[in-house]
């Protein structure tokens, strides 16, 4: 007898047993079933008795097959006995919770970044990246922040080698210079990445954060376009009803410069502790790209004009998602991460 025939035999017994137990009505019948298949002279035992006549390896294989079937049928018997209380099948109680599942989650910084870049991509902005270890030239000088200028105090910078002017970028603006050096206008680009500043960690400060930088250069770009594009962005991000306000500001690489504030999400503009009773919260800095920046990258400042803007990703996430402490972003607590999709 070869294994194939034996297997068919065993399978046959198993199938019959399952079929018969379906139609069993009471405990007596169940006991009879047990005797028939699992009893001392039952079907399983009968096939076992055939084994001694077989070849050694066949015997082993068939033995394990038989044991498996025997265990399965014993389980079937137990189940049937347990559920045959009233002779009827017990109804499954569907009210109990399902088994938990564990899908993967993107970090909220990635979630919010994608929302933000998505809005600009709709307007035809491309995406660029740049190095985190930067030179002072791209980070400061090319952006019209000369050495020894007090404006540098706004970027408290980590140095890797100050004498050689190598630093960790404190903003994503150097990507603007790198992109413009490589590409001629017209262009519109956003760039997102990690930035570093010498801020001690507390609820609202982190030495590491993410920033989005964006700019658009073409003929005839003016301040009204800056307002138009950024107002569109804020309305896409926070809703059409959000009010937007532009006030004068100062950045060495833009002139005129502006700061965008929007109506406070918490108090809806009535004034609260979050907006320091002003009804507005500061969201981002922006302005018309300074002609000096154009000259530094070899653009004709008489022919082209453009606007640029920069904003913190964590700040946007904090406003958008109502997160109360910037430290959450870097603790990687799963109970934090799994809240966002």
């Amino acid at each position, binding site marked *: 007898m070869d294994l194939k025939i034996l297997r068919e035999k065993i399978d046959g017994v198993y199938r019959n047993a399952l079929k018969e137990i379906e139609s069993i009505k009471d405990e007596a019948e169940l006991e009879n079933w047990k005797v028939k298949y699992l009893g001392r002279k039952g079907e399983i035992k009968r096939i076992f008795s055939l084994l001694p006549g077989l070849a050694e390896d066949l015997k082993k294989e068939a033995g394990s097959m038989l044991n498996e079937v025997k265990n399965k049928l014993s389980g079937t018997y137990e189940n049937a006995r347990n559920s045959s209380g009233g002779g009827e099948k017990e109804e499954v109680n569907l009210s109990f919770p399902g088994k938990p599942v564990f899908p993967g989650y993107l970090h909220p910084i990635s979630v919010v970044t994608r929302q933000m870049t998505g809005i600009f991509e709709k307007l035809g902005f491309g995406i*660029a990246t740049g190095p985190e270890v930067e030179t002072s030239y791209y980070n400061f000088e090319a952006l019209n922040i000369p050495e020894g200028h007090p404006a540098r105090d706004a970027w408290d910078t980590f140095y890797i080698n100050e004498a050689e002017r190598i630093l960790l970028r404190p903003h994503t603006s150097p990507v603007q210079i790198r992109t413009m050096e490589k590409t001629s206008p017209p262009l519109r680009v956003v760039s997102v990445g990690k930035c570093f500043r010498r801020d001690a960690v507390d609820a609202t400060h982190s030495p590491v954060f993410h920033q989005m930088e964006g700019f658009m250069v073409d003929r005839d770009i003016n301040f009204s376009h800056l307002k138009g594009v950024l107002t569109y962005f804020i309305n896409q991000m926070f809703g059409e009803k959000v009010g937007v306000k532009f006030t004068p500001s100062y950045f060495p690489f833009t002139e005129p410069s502006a700061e965008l504030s929007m109506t406070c999400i918490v108090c809806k503009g009535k004034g609260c502790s979050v907006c320091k009773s002003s009804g507005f919260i500061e969201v981002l800095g922006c302005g018309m790209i300074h002609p000096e920046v154009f000259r530094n990258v070899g653009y004709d400042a008489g022919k082209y004009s453009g606007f640029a803007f920069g904003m913190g990703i964590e700040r946007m996430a904090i406003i958008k998602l109502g997160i109360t402490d910037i430290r959450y972003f870097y603790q990687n607590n799963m109970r934090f991460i799994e809240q966002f999709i």
Partner: protein
Amino acid sequence: MKYSYKLVSDYIAGNIGKREMLDYLDSLGLNPLVTSEEDGDLIFELETPANRGYLLSLSGVAREILPFTGSALKLPDDSLAENIEAEIPVKIENRKDCPYYSCRIMKDVSNGVSPEWMEKSLGKMGYRSSFNTVDASNFVMAETGQPLHIFDLDRIEGRVEIRRGRKGESVVTIDGKKREIDGDVLVIADEVKIIAVAGIMGCEVSEVRADTKNILIESAVFNPAVVRRGSKKLGLTTEASLRFERGIDSATSVKGMSRVTHLINKTGKGNVGKLTEAGKREEKVTEITLEVCRVGKVLGIKVEESFIADILERLNFLTEKGKNTYKIVPPPYRNDIKEDVDIIEEIARYGKYSEIPSLMPVASISPTSPAEEIAKVEKIKDIAVKLGFSEFINMGLTNKRNTGLSRNKEAVPLENPISANLEFLRSSLIPEVLESIQFNICRDFRELNVFELGKVYSGISTEVQEEENLLFASVNSGDFFSFKGRIEKFFSECGFKNLSFSKKPHVFASDNNELALSGKAGMGNIFVLSPDIQALYGLDREDIYVCELYLDRFIDEVNFKRSFVELARFPSCRRDFSFIFPQSIVWEKIKNTIFSLGLPVEKIDFFDLYRGKNMEKGKISVSFAVLFRHPEKTLENAEVKDFSEKIVKAITNKLKGRLRGENTKC
């Protein structure tokens, strides 16, 4: 400094309301923040931009408001009468460091308390009251923006010199601290000693004291960059240094000198000496041409020429009107005005940003650069999430212990860290991820599947290598092979067909396999975390598997292009095999041996490894299924039987495997 409504109003001819003043300042973006209200006055702070040093003065803030109201600036009385001949010789070592220096002797001054109005005014601005002479200098600094210094004349020996410090020199500044001086610091010295750190702080040796009778008043212009460098070097920022850094003009200097002389004379009498000057009252004039059409071109709104002319006049800009242009000379205190856009910003500030419409630009559609790599990285993150991994983002700044573990990489330290915990750039993603895992386990989140995608850094400070790494980790969620299965799936999703693993030691691992892609080694490592590392990170009791990938090395070959593969039309036939092999058998070899036979094998699926009691020592039983399928016909039983025999033969001969069982599933 702090500002007060009443003190600013003193410089404005005509009346202006409190609310009105704050609203103007607010619309200029100076964000006034009222800190207190007392006896009908408002005390407020301003956010003054770094390029507008003139706003660090009461008269400067008054000037900022005037264009709104059209009123005139009310200048304070600075009349004086020199009545003695006394003078002190002054020498400037380098005019670049100090373009203009003036000083004046006053003798027989009564040095006592200030009048009440002075004390009160200083208090509102946040300054402490001292002797009337010193108070006058502080008050005039707040009025005009010109920092002034008062020396005790009798403690100055010989002439006054403005020179660089010398290595080895040191001073005790009036805050009582001893400071080392070197060539980066500009000082004021007499013939034997340093009497002040120029533009930053005076020294104790020449400080005004209760018994001071004769004084020397200093009003100067120092090079902003030199003052800034000195201030950074000494770690000493003062009201004076803030103003000098932002730039002072000699006209302001002259005005400051006469006003402070007037005030000291008024409060302390005394005799007024002659004004000594060195260097030049600078006459550098910036002439800017503004084409009227540029205003509209930059702002996107038509601005009436009359408005432009009006604002320029109210801002005290000298203008000469040409045909559709203005030639403009800003006043000397406006060193922020350098080209036409600076003037356009002024026009916009006073015309209110809110008047400019919000419009969408009309732009040619220019296809943006594909940025393929950025898109790939995002897709890779999606695949990781799809496979059940959640994203971690760590700072990337870490401590010496963490970077020290990757011995083969030179970690990059920061020159000016803020703490020892954030002193180095990470050289591997592993330590920070382990710390985050431990953080979660402490909060009873024990089963984790995580990934991080980020930069690691290595090299010497002038040549830092930035590499993008990708790390997967599985914590208490299944065995190593269920982790490895997902890594394999990750690579097949990324379009890699040929994945191989070879044993290689790794500093974080007890058992490690190095990963090769399409035959290229060194693409990553997959391993069981070593007990030492587990103990180090407080993870002794967890089952942790890690896969570290060097993304930059293979991202170019990541391929998400897919094209339809015709579904098989003929049935497959499966054969299961169990072989006994020596324990050291490598799965790759079994697979390659079968594929190399040239049979119509679609795939080989490993499904069991057994090393139980019934096995010979040093042997394992490996079970796998081979799926045969011919693209053009249904395979006959006899053919499959023949294939199976060939497989058994090849494995027996080439790999010393012994057939344990074969099974048919067609």
